[in-house]
């Protein structure tokens, strides 16, 4: 585990090579990043488990499992689940970057699990490597001595044999008891169209074999094991798993809700007394609506979300409908990158064309009548006169930065309605700044601003820190006087007008001219705060249309006709998808 880009997947490559786990002809960089999206973006999104065989210097052969995890904060849920299947963790730190924010948060996860931690400095081949400083930072963080810290280059392979040796020597074997009743924790899963759900399990106690009748301890559902084995990383059927093993189980599970991540599998005949403590269900932080661009694809979208959520247990969704967009789903994500990845996976893996509404956080609305509502869709915020106050989620953010950027970053947080909590120094050059910030303020362009202000050297991490009352208003967007529910957004009162202006301006540019004048307005309640007008279309006809031009013109009109059918309409105004996207882009800003 590590901060993003510190070299986990590259180190995994070297380990796969040294343990001869992958056919050299099939080897490629970041081998375990098998999803197209991961390869294109150069980041890990999903954890990947592999079972390895290592012949150590003491002559013994060790079998051990490796799980490559993502570094991006949006996917830390993957890390925390992976750790449940482990005895130890390699804490990897980029020698050029030093300790960064997710180094610390991932370290804390591993400490909570009571794992053996091996600190490793990576990228020592780089000319800008700061090995000594990084050692100081690590010691400041976890104590210990310099010689306990390994130094490797995942790129050249230097130091990796020593690391394998350290893994074999320092990390204890799993504790479980093979004679006890079966307890196998499902820590991940995905759907295979031929064999049903693949459960990724860590066997805590007991044994399981092909043909065993099993039971899900939380849902009570029963199945027969039709196959089990190890990840190598391709599936290796062994027909048997026992305590300490990490592997997979097939049991003809067609309904994907029946094998929930976090559930414990036990034997029907000889059930365990209680399930293994599962995972803290993660709460989504960011919400948006997903709609099929073509309304007819609604059912496909539904099926795709069901399958995808099996492979991404942090994804949550429920049906919703919008006047402008028809039927779709309100989806919850762990962050904007997560949202973007889910959208792209739906588009690629399920060939869907998606319209996404602007992302929002979940608000707590206290009503005058004493009721409290949690609302994650701005369009559903009650009218202003029914509201006593609106609360929004806050985070406790941690910024790790070289001290010279400290004041610029404090300034940045203040602009974002942040409240400084504390500053700590764990070496004389590095400051740890703690801030309370509204979650909505760090979603948009915050990372970019942070990187710009610190020449790329500051890093950021956050955890939820409860709700606070804020002066928030709902801004409605009216197109030709009709509210476009999918475009409504929440904003701090002081910013509402500015944002409203920006949105109507984008809409003016992206909505094509119609046969009539189309006013586009932003409003708070009945108070119009911004307005633009799309003038009526006055000319679109081609001037010349003689014998040779007719086919061209027909094709042009047919395209126009089809294009129009794909647009959404609000009242009698057709709104192209690009308009929704443009508004979203302006909200979401540049993403990672």
């Amino acid at each position, binding site marked *: 585990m590590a901060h993003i880009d510190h070299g986990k997947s590259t180190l995994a490559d070297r380990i796969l090579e040294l343990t001869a786990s992958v056919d050299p002809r099939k080897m490629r960089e970041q081998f375990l990043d098998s999803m197209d999206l991961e390869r294109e973006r150069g980041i890990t999104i999903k954890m990947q488990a592999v079972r390895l065989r290592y012949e150590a210097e003491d002559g013994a052969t060790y079998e051990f499992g490796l799980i490559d995890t993502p570094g991006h904060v949006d996917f830390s849920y993957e890390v925390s689940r992976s750790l449940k299947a482990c005895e130890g963790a390699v804490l990897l730190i980029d020698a050029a970057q030093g300790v960064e924010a997710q180094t610390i948060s991932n370290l804390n996860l591993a400490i909570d699990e009571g794992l053996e931690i091996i600190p490793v400095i990576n990228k020592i081949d780089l000319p800008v490597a700061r090995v000594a400083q990084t050692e100081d930072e690590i010691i400041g963080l976890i104590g210990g001595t310099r010689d306990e810290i390994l130094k490797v280059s995942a790129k050249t392979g230097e130091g990796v044999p020593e690391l394998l040796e350290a893994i074999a020597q320092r990390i204890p074997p799993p504790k479980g008891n093979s004679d006890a009743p079966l307890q196998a924790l499902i820590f991940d899963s995905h759907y295979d169209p031929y064999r049903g759900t693949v459960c990724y399990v860590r066997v805590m106690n007991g044994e399981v074999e092909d043909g065993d009748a099993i039971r899900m301890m939380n849902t009570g559902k029963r199945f027969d094991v039709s196959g089990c084995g190890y990840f190598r990383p391709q599936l290796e059927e062994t027909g048997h798993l026992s305590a300490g093993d990490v592997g997979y189980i097939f049991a003809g599970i067609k309904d994907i809700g029946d094998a929930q991540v976090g559930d414990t599998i036990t034997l029907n005949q000889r059930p365990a007394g209680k399930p293994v403590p599962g995972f803290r269900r993660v709460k989504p932080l960011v919400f948006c609506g997903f709609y099929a661009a073509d309304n007819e694809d609604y059912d496909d979208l539904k099926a795709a979300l069901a399958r995808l959520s099996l492979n991404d247990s942090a994804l949550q969704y429920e049906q919703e409908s919008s006047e402008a967009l028809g039927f779709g789903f309100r989806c919850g994500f762990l962050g904007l990158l997560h949202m973007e990845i889910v959208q792209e996976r739906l588009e690629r893996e399920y060939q869907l064309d998606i319209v996404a509404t602007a992302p929002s956080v979940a608000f707590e609305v206290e009503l005058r009548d004493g009721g409290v509502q949690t609302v994650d869709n701005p369009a559903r915020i009650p009218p202003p006169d029914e509201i006593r106050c609106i609360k929004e989620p806050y985070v406790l953010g941690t910024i790790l930065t070289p001290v010279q950027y400290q004041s610029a970053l404090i300034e940045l947080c203040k602009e974002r309605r942040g409240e400084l909590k504390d500053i700590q120094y764990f070496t004389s050059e590095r400051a740890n700044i703690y801030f309370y910030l509204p979650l909505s303020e760090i979603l948009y362009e915050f990372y970019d601003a942070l990187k710009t202000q610190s020449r790329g050297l500051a890093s950021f991490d956050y955890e939820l820190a409860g709700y606070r009352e804020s002066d928030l208003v709902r801004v409605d967007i009216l197109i030709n006087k009709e509210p476009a529910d999918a475009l409504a957004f929440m904003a701090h009162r002081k910013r509402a007008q500015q944002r409203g202006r920006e949105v109507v301006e984008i809409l003016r540019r992206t909505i094509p001219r119609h046969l009539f004048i189309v006013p586009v307005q932003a409003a708070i309640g009945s108070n119009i705060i911004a307005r633009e007008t799309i003038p009526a279309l006055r000319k679109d006809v081609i001037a010349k*249309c003689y014998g040779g031009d*007719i086919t061209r013109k027909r094709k042009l009109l047919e395209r126009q006709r089809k294009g*129009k059918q794909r647009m959404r309409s609000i009242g009698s105004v057709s709104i192209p998808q690009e308009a929704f996207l443009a508004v979203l882009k302006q909200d979401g800003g540049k993403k990672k």
Partner: protein
Amino acid sequence: MIIEKSSPPKDHATRYSLPATSGLYIHIPFCLQRCAYCDFASYALNALPNGLSFGSYADALIKEARLAAKERGAPRFSTLYFGGGTPSLMPLDELRRIVAALRESFNVSQIEEFTLEANPDTLDGEKLASWRELGVNRLSLGIQSLSDTSLKELGRSYSREEALGALARHRDELAAFDLSFDLLLNIPWQNPSQVLDDIRTLYAFEPVHLSLYSLKVEPGTPLAMRVANEPELAPDKDRFADEMGAAEKLLEESGFARYEVSNFARDGKWSLHNLTYWRGGNYLGLGVNATSCIRGVRTRNHREFADYRAALMRNELPVAERAELTETERAFERLMLALRTMWGISRDELPLRIWKKLQAKAEELAERHPQLIVAIPERIALTSAGMNVEHALVVELAEGDLWGEPV
């Protein structure tokens, strides 16, 4: 502010009944020089491809005429149109050969309208007299603008002085023809009222017909490259509508009616040949890149002379593309073409099931946009403002399941 006319077109419909026409089109791909905005199939005289000359082109045309006649059984035509390029460049002896071959191959004894396109700087007394003798009764003169700056920027081969001089010198010979002038709207190098001045100036030569086209930036032309660097030159649609509105007002005062999106005529002197296109009639085109549409089969000839001639050498029609329209496509074309004209489309021009749905849609649209469209039980037509946005209106009309199947 422009007053949009919304005269109910039914007047025209009852006043005139249009004869069914069929047209023969001959493409002449020669020009003195290539204009900056032009993407027509045409060659500048100083840059002719190998093997292309007036003579070799005439030979090829004659051969194509014979082949086409054999294939199609010597059809009868009511209009003949020499377009280009610049047909007025064609040397007289070559032109005579071509016309003679057409007479031989097709039934052209009842030609009502024989148009030849000409540029002002190619006129001379001998040509004009011979054209008349050959039967030409209508000249379409490409003027485009009378502003010297515009002419220069557009890459036209003459100045204002030269154009007007030629017209004045040949005033008497020209009087023997129905005259039509082409002008461009939306020329970025002139101010919007220039076109009005030009129309007034041209009135002196007593045209019965005017075509006002919008300057269009066609990809790959020198103009397109220029606009890419100087975006302020890109044609502005609002300006088009303003210029068109003002020109239309002026023309109407002098008795010209806008009978098609870009065409105006006086005394019913519409271009019968072009009406054939808009009314779904049959037409046969000869020459490079020429198109034909006969009973729903549309073909296009090779664009390059080499390919065109090679096919003819093999005794094959020089057809590069051929498409047979489905009933739905034909109906859709009928609609989109007919709505370009002041007559619009009438009940008997479409299959009844389509007409019924269309008519209902049109009434609904007319209610919302009375300034754009007129719908009566027998006929749907666009107003002048409606003609400017014909695409959007056709798309509105053709929405939904109107056609029973996706077009």
